[in-house]
């Protein structure tokens, strides 16, 4: 089965700071996704990618950037973190999900 890993698993950041969430996949799938999950909102798509060098905006891209430097790696970048970005972030490769990153912005 495909393996999707995320780092860090937990992160505390300060308002205005830069945060980078990393995702790595070993199943060689072209499509990768970043979601956030908040109580009352379910899973919401932030950015996705169809392959190395490509990034596409999802449903809630504001305040986030994405980077896909290789087939295996897909990063989510918060240039200026805000408390409203406190959430649990999930990366997915195809139909398989990573374990999540719990981000708290103080």
């Amino acid at each position: 089965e495909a393996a999707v890993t995320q780092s860090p698993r937990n992160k505390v950041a300060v308002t205005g700071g830069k945060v980078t969430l990393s995702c790595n996949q070993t199943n060689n799938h072209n499509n990768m996704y970043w979601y956030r999950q908040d109580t009352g909102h379910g899973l919401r798509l932030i950015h996705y990618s169809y392959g190395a060098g490509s990034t596409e905006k999802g449903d809630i891209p504001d305040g986030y950037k994405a980077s896909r430097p290789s087939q295996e790696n897909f990063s989510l970048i918060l240039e200026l973190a805000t408390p409203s970005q406190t959430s649990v972030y999930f990366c997915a490769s195809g139909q398989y999900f990573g374990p999540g990153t719990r981000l708290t912005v103080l």
Partner: protein
Amino acid sequence: AQSVTQPDARVTVSEGASLQLRCKYSYSATPYLFWYVQYPRQGLQLLLKYYSGDPVVQGVNSFEAEFSKSNSSFHLQKASVHWSDSAVYFCALSISNNRIFFGDGTQLVVKP
């Protein structure tokens, strides 16, 4: 546009009872369909998926789902639930195996 509806936000059943979690989808053709389970403070785990063929799909842990084109449904079923099945279950669809659209999830509570 495509969408997934899980009409029941919360379902409570007794241990050993049968279970059906409902899922309706909206899409003009047959999409790829999935069921995921999420245990507390964990990621989403794929339970089963339907692409084509036999409308009854077997998944992990004795779960199965039945696709109905006429009803635009993909209900999840289990003959006898265990307390450890308590979790949130998400139905999802994908078009041509691209981005996945999720329902809002159903919280399953299994009473001892």
